[in-house]
């Protein structure tokens, strides 16, 4: 047996959506994280919870890239493909690099599975030499799992359900990983089911030992811990970071968090996470529909809470009128959009960045709403806190944009301590303030907040146009124009309270600037880093604040001859940039429900760089 040290590995786990692939992937992720690797993950699952077994539609996948070097994406090509059946192989073989390893559960390659995956019975890819470019490790995982549990009193179905642990144990051995974290996890998960617990641990160990003793896998790989910034780390997924960020914003502002939401993929996990933390005073409310969810948040904010609602594109479409109301009332409200493939129901479990224009423009009347976006799973934390800060300090609804890719993706997070977090100041009026006028504004054009219970400050607000200062209903034409412009100025003014746009990599004299936003960060970062190492003249800047843009954005992008804007949509940020700055930026678009690969961006930059 040989032992080989490698810098970076990409593994793709694939199987039926009932095979426990996501759990296998996330266990491997946590173990790699605890070991000290840098990593990035990308779960890829079908929209159906249990699509027909053995079919291509039912394949669930989980990709992880981990290494001793910095990792910014789940990787372009895979080094290892783990497949539980032939459909999983067929759906994902194109992800595997030439010479890569395939770990095959042969039980998933029988006649039935071949037929379900659309193969002729006699065209078994394990037998027809079509995999000769790869190193194939075959094992009958079902048989091995059952043999390992032969003296256990569980039913066959329950035994078979342990098969993902066999795979996990096998891969742990390949990468020289400890089983401790997963055993601890199983102890928690099955603490009330001792026989299931015992079976899972036995199968996990059996997989590990099988890899050790059998001869199919002759190489063991070492991926050393990454050299990362000093400090304390944890592993985090985007939706989890969003939920924690909301609680942090509640604590930093002193406002109770009210979270109203209607279940929708891929945003529901934020609701699940927040519902676990009621001991932080979180009031989570599963509403009867998307409109009720945001309306309840408006009611809560009106009462002095921090109202937050989260959804995905279709839900935002339903919430539009209520966002306009919050804008008109000028109360704090955060609207989270975990974007997915659209339009309409679109691709619920796939990622896309196609709701940017909806966030910026999608309301009746002149109703500009600030937009903040997150670029990585852990960045959701800080970005959503910023969205809350702007909402509260500037008394306005704010959009926070995440997407399916970063919401479900994971990475190590150098987590902060509460003492390092910025306080959020609440523009609350004072009881019996005799000068109080509901729509009198400070130098930021922000009105003072008076909530029920504050004696002497009783007043009425509503969606009808308001008279300046008093907030009384007004149909006066000049007042309307004044108020429309004042509300717009209030949002523009926020540019003075956000940081300037900085370069993420490269110099101000570079030939090409890559301007990104949201979850394209990792792919752009990887591409630009490699190109800089190769001597190309390229720079990268990544937007968190999209409305308003940072004050210096125009001067920054004007320094470059060529500005490339990669987006997972048909060109949305580029419309805003062209409109606002009349800069002829160059679009790069992918609309396949999956993220960019770094090499795609790299090739595009090279083409621009070397072209005229």
């Amino acid at each position: 047996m040989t032992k080989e040290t490698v810098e970076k590995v990409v593994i793709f786990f694939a199987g039926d959506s009932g095979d426990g692939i996501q759990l296998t992937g996330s266990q491997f992720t946590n173990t790699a994280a605890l070991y000290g690797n840098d990593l990035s993950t990308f779960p890829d699952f079908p929209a159906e919870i249990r699509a027909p077994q053995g079919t291509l539609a039912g394949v669930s996948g989980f990709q992880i890239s981990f290494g001793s070097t910095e990792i910014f994406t789940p990787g372009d090509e895979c080094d290892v493909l783990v497949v539980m059946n032939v459909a999983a192989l067929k759906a994902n073989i194109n992800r595997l690099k030439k010479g890569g390893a395939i770990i095959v559960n042969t039980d998933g390659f029988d006649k039935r599975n071949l037929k379900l995956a659309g193969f002729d019975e006699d065209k078994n890819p394990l037998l027809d030499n079509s995999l000769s470019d790869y190193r194939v490790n075959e094992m009958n995982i079902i048989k091995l799992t059952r043999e390992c549990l032969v003296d256990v009193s569980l039913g066959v179905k329950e035994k078979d359900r342990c098969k993902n642990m066999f795979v996990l144990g096998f891969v742990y051995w390949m990468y020289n990983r400890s089983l401790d974290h997963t055993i601890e996890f199983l102890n928690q998960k099955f603490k009330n089911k001792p026989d299931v617990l015992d079976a899972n641990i036995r199968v996990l160990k059996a997989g590990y030992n099988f890899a050790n003793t059998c001869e199919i896998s002759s190489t063991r790989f070492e991926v050393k811990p990454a050299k990362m910034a000093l400090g304390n780390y944890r592993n985090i997924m985007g939706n989890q970071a969003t939920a924690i960020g909301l609680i942090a914003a509640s604590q930093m502002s002193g406002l109770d968090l009210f979270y109203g939401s209607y279940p929708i993929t891929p945003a529901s996990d934020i609701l699940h996470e927040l519902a676990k933390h009621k001991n932080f005073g979180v009031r989570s409310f599963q509403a009867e529909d998307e409109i009720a969810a945001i309306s309840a948040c408006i009611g809560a904010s009106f009462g002095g809470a921090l109202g937050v609602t989260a959804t995905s594109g279709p839900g935002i479409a339903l919430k539009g009128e209520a966002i306009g109301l919050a804008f008109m009332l000028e109360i704090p409200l955060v609207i989270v959009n975990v974007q997915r493939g659209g339009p309409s129901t679109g691709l619920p479990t796939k990622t896309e960045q196609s709701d940017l224009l909806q966030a910026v423009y999608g309301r009746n009347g002149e109703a500009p709403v600030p937009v903040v976006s997150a670029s990585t799973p852990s960045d959701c934390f800080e970005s959503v806190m910023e969205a809350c800060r702007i909402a509260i300090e500037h008394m306005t609804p704010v959009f926070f944009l995440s997407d399916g890719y970063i919401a479900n993706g994971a990475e190590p997070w150098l987590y902060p301590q509460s003492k390092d977090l910025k306080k959020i100041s609440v523009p609350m009026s004072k009881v019996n303030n005799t000068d109080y006028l509901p729509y009198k504004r400070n130098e930021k054009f922000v009105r003072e907040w008076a909530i029920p219970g504050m004696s002497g400050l009783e007043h009425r607000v509503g969606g009808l146009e308001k008279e300046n200062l008093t907030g009384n209903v007004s149909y006066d034409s000049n007042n309307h124009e004044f108020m429309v412009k004042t509300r717009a100025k209030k949002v523009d003014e926020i540019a003075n309270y956000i940081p300037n746009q900085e370069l993420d990599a490269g110099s101000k004299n570079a030939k090409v600037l890559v301007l990104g936003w949201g979850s394209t960060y990792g792919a752009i970062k990887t591409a630009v880093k490699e190109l800089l190492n190769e001597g190309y003249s390229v720079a990268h800047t990544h937007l968190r604040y999209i409305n308003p843009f940072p004050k210096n954005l125009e001067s920054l992008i004007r320094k470059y001859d060529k500005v490339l804007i990669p987006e997972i949509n048909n060109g949305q940020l580029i419309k805003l940039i062209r409109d606002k700055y009349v800069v002829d930026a160059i679009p790069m678009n992918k609309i396949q429900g999956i993220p960019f690969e770094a090499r795609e961006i790299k090739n595009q930059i090279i083409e621009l760089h070397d072209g005229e």
Partner: protein
Amino acid sequence: MENKEYTAKDFSSDQEVRWCPGCGDYSILKQVQSVMPLIGVPKENIVFISGIGCSSRFPYYMETFGMHSIHGRATAIASGLKAARPDLSVWIITGDGDSLSIGGNHLIHLLRRNFDTNILLFNNQIYGLTKGQYSPTSEKGKKTKSTPMGSIDHPFNPLALCIGADATFVARSMDRDPKHLREMLIRSNDHKGTSLLEIYQNCNVFNDGAFFGMTDKATKMNQTLFLENKKPLVFGENKDKGIRLEGFKPVIVSLNDFSLEDLWVHDENDRVKAGLLTRFFDADFPRPFGVFYCEKRPTYEDALVQQIEDAIEVKDKGDLDSLLKGSNTWTID
């Protein structure tokens, strides 16, 4: 507790009331303002939330906190407000279009959740603000601008709908009976849970006389039935008619043939009989007014606060640093 400091005038805002002259809304506003000093709540703790429609201008005229929101959503907004602020007295002003058409979904969910709020449903059986289209409570065959050949919609029976949604308090009153209306407003306020008070309100511009038979001297005694708890169901010009239950079938009888002991005795806590009463909805039976049904059931906001307290009891008050840290961490040094 009665708050002696307030008079009805203290609840009148400085805004000019702009309903059509003769609108039933004026009377309702007046009764609400006169009841407010009696409920014993400091006015800064009172909130009126409305949707869209003629009646929904109501909050502008009340010297309390208020929100004139968007069409159909007052019930949902009030739910969030009450969840965040259980200490407030929350009143929802809505109409038949607002609560039964565009906002129907939120109404039934508010009722089943039982937030302690008071819904005043102004039912004028017409869309007034949009100038006279039929509403979900308009009678079938109604000729309006949008139904020149008569409407073909079967109308909602609002109280039957609310009983069906497991409302814990269901009552009916009308604009033209100030005394009864005040009584019902106080009962609504006193009920802990969602109170649904339907108020028949005359739109003298687009649907004048919709409830004429129930308000006109000549007919009202025969066409109305005023419910009183533990009292037999008696009505008629000379209190000479009653309602008997024959099995589950209500029957109108003459008190010449039957005595009071033979009649159906109203029981506010009987859901099945309340359901039957809501079905007194056609010309054969007098229309009931008063409290149909009243039930004690825990409110949503109390259960929500209880869960927070329980969570703190079990896990201690949330510590942000341990949340940030999570359960699996490693250090690079």
